[in-house]
Each structure stands twice: as structure tokens, then as C-alpha cells.
């Protein structure tokens, strides 16, 4: 029943409430995600290997490497509470979207307050989804389409183009094979008829 570590998506959950952390962790684990839960935006950035001072304006500088030697897994999605002391979920969202190395990681915001202006602001500034608390299993089920496995979006597009070209070629050869088969069948049919 176990999935290999590489096959599982890794979600970083951020919430200052210990109860909500336990809840989101369980919801995610039940949905077969690997989870790391932290209690603040600054801890989240630390885990992601991003420090306050990092300003990646030069594209020649390689992506920020993890500061923690035990952070081997990449993060495929970040789900964060909105209302947190210090750095809010919105602040965290902005920092992630402003980071060259992290901006393509999908971010989902959770909040107990159903405030349309807050929701719109988050979605406009790059959040993929906004969940009202308490978060349900049905909400977590909405995450899968947003998940990005492996490299960044840019690379994925390139891969898709190559795949498309290959698929076209394969389709054409399959068509050819099918035609040959039909031809052979026809020949066989004719031979039967002639018996």
C-alpha cells in the first residue's frame, strides 16, 4: 500500500494554531500527501530555504539551495492560514510569489473569516484557492489539479511540447499499423471467400 517517497506530493502546511495544524496534517495525510507542518510564516520561509535577504535579481545565480541539510524533499504546494501573528498568510504569499525560486509553487490560503475583499486580494495576488475554515476533506480533494510535480512550470511546458511531437509520430505509426492489419484481414477474408 505504501507509495514511494518520490511519487508522493509534499505539502507544506503553515498555521499558528496547534489544533488546526493537527487537523490539516491529518486531512493531507489521509489524501496521501507527505506533510511538513510549521507554525509561522518565517519558519515556512526558512524551510523553503529562503531568507529575508535573498533578492534573486541575477538569473545566473542558481536556485537557492536548502539551508537545512535534512530538507531533501521539494515542496509541491503550500497551504497557509491567513491570520497569523507576525507574518500573515498574505505576507507569506507575497514573499513566495516575489521569489524567483519559489514563485511557481501553488499557494492555498485558509481563513475562518469569510471576507470577500480578503479572498479576492489573495486570489488576485496569486493564491490558487481560498478555503474557509474549518477545512474539510472535500476542500483537500480540490488540491490535486493545482499540484506541480517536478520542475517549474516553464520546464513543464517544454516537456509537454516534446511529448506532443512524439505522440503525433506514434499516432501516425499506429494508424499505419492499423491500416496494414485491416489490409491483411481483407486479404484473408477474400481468400476465405474464394474457397
Amino acid at each position, binding site marked *: 500500500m505504501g507509495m514511494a517517497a518520490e511519487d508522493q506530493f509534499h505539502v507544506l502546511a503553515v498555521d499558528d*494554531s*496547534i*489544533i*488546526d495544524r*493537527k*487537523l490539516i496534517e*491529518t*486531512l493531507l495525510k*489521509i489524501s496521501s500527501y507527505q506533510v511538513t507542518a510549521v507554525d509561522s510564516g518565517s519558519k515556512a520561509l526558512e524551510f523553503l530555504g529562503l531568507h529575508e535577504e535573498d533578492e534573486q535579481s541575477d538569473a545566473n545565480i542558481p536556485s537557492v539551495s536548502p539551508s537545512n541539510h535534512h530538507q531533501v524533499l521539494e515542496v509541491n504546494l503550500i497551504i497557509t492560514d491567513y*491570520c497569523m*501573528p507576525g507574518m500573515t498568510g498574505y505576507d507569506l504569499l507575497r514573499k513566495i510569489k516575489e521569489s524567483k525560486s519559489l514563485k511557481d509553487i501553488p499557494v492555498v490560503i485558509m481563513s*475562518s473569516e469569510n471576507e470577500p475583499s480578503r479572498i479576492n486580494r489573495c486570489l488576485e495576488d496569486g493564491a490558487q484557492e481560498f478555503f474557509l*475554515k*474549518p477545512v*474539510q*476533506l472535500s476542500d483537500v480533494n480540490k488540491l490535486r489539479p493545482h499540484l506541480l510535480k517536478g520542475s517549474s512550470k516553464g520546464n513543464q511546458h517544454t516537456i509537454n511540447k516534446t511529448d506532443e511531437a512524439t505522440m503525433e509520430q506514434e499516432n501516425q505509426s499506429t494508424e499505419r499499423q492499423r491500416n496494414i492489419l485491416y489490409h491483411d484481414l481483407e486479404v484473408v477474408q477474400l481468400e476465405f471467400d474464394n474457397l
Partner: protein
Amino acid sequence: MEVGQMQRQWLDYTKSLFLEGFLDGQFLQLQQLQDESNPDFVVEVVSLFFEDSEKLLNDLTSALGQQSVDFKRVDAHVHQLKGSSSSIGAQRVKNACIALRNYCEEQNIEGCIGCLQQVKHEYNMVKNKLENLFRLEQQIVAAGGSIPMTELGF
């Protein structure tokens, strides 16, 4: 008491908690997340809630007892308590918190203090009820039975 009787008692007790509004649908969600790989989930989350709430209630008492009440601080604590009670389905505690937040917004100290009493009262009641429920569960499991969650029929 034999297992069947205990299970019926558990069912009746649980249903009454919902009917009397102590618990809402969120508690059912928690129960549904509990399974063989996570057999103590509900007790664990609720225990965290008890610990967290007791601390918050103490902080609130202290904050409202200050010479000059810091309403922002009071509001922050109530917001936390409202959130956690909502997360475990403790409906009456959550509603009492909403009322307390309103008094806070009005900066009405008397109102806040009275409402805090109400929050404490609701908290103690649901704590008591949940502890009874968990004790029943322990007895059922100790007697070799299982907790008939699927028979709640909501």
C-alpha cells in the same frame, strides 16, 4: 454492563450532544477522519483543544482584569478560541466567543467580563460531556467492542 448496552449508551449520548447543540457537524468530520491508522485522532485533537483553551481562558481573564484593558489583545485571544472551538465542532463555545468578540469591538468591559463567564461555562460543559464520551469509548474498547460511529445516522 455488556458491550451492546454500552454501545447503545454511546449512541444515545452522542446524539444528545448534537441535538443539544454542544457539538456540530465538524465533530462528525473529526470522527470520520479517525480510522485504524489513526485510532486516537479525536481524543488527540480534543486534548489539544482542552490544553489550548485553558491557557486562552486564563489569558483572557488576566487581560480583562488589567487597569487599562488592551482590547486588541483580548480580541486576538477570543479569535483563537473561536477558531479552535470551530475546528473541533464545539458549537456553543464558538457562539459564546462570537458574542464576546462583539463586546470587545464595542470596548464594553462589563459586557466582556460577563460574556467571558458564559464562554467559560460553555467550555466546562462541553469538556465534561466529551470526557464522559471518551470514558464510554474506553469502556467499550476495553470490553472488546468497537465504537459504532457509522450508526450515528446523521
